[in-house]
């Protein structure tokens, strides 16, 4: 086990734990329900997930149209299956399957 690698992992791990844990101790009950911070936090969830969608799809975006076919198939499958089944599991698996199959055929 490399000591440098272990040190790096411990630094990142401790900070990540602090980032995830310490903000849960904020006392939100004292905040006004229409206050700026409460509104900000309520909008954080959709904003965060939208950001992660873009960040994870972005490296797959290509100028070559043919390379985009698996991505398009995957996205359409996720949206279509989610609208049909309202299931996150089914939509995720369908999207992954569609991407892999289209990649093989392209």
């Amino acid at each position, binding site marked *: 086990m490399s000591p440098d690698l272990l040190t790096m992992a411990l630094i990142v791990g401790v900070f990540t734990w602090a980032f995830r844990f310490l903000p849960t101790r904020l006392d939100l009950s004292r905040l006004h329900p229409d206050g700026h911070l409460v509104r900000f936090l309520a909008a954080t969830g959709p904003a965060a997930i*939208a950001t992660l969608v873009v960040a994870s799809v972005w490296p797959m975006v290509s100028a070559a149209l043919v390379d985009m076919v698996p991505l398009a198939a995957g996205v359409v499958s996720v949206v279509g299956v989610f609208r049909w089944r309202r299931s996150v599991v089914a939509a995720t698996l369908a999207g992954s399957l569609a991407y892999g199959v289209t990649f093989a055929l392209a």
Partner: protein
Amino acid sequence: MPQPRPKSGFADGLLAALPIAMGYFPIAFSFGVAATRAGLSAPEAFMLSLIMYAGAAQFLALALISAGAPLLVTAFTLVAMNLRHVMYGPALMKRAGAQASARHAWAWAFGLTDEVFGTALGALARGDVVYSERFMFGLTLAAYAAWLGGTAAGALAGGGALEAYPAISAGLGFMLPALFLALLLSILSRAQVPVVAIAAAVTVAGTLWMSPTSGILGGMVAGALAGVVGQRRQA
């Protein structure tokens, strides 16, 4: 007078984690394979998942290590990348309600990854579950176990495990974006469309002109600010 719904338990958390676990296992498998391909031993790959437990940061760690980046530069680049997680705790506790307990959050909050946060928030927003710390323990533990199991399997399979199966590798690579997209669809409402649009636009702009980490952080802050402005206009 209607009775309050009972709080969701540990088993409910395990069940809610099923989509995450199904997504995590193959992604962590890919990480284990990539780590051994980058020259790490199987125990080292497992150690990264055990201690860091942050998928995107772990993949970036491999790239930085392979490029020979100094230890502290690598560590604090990854710390900066994970800074976005500071928003998850307050957003989750806000959705959980004023009486929600976070007494044992020091233990379960380590598992508050992007996907766990998204799943918990989505389930609470849809009313599928009632917040409890037992539920959070079930959700976070199942996801963590899948991540560790996938890493171990990938690291033991070795660096060339997926080379002969490019389509499977490609499909597995799309698992994470598919999961994020499905989570977004599950919590999306008409009122939040401007929040999502602005977050997405700022992420693209930040990624193009600065760095992916700046794009992620900027997108989250801009989207959340858009929510404040939009709601104020509606009021």
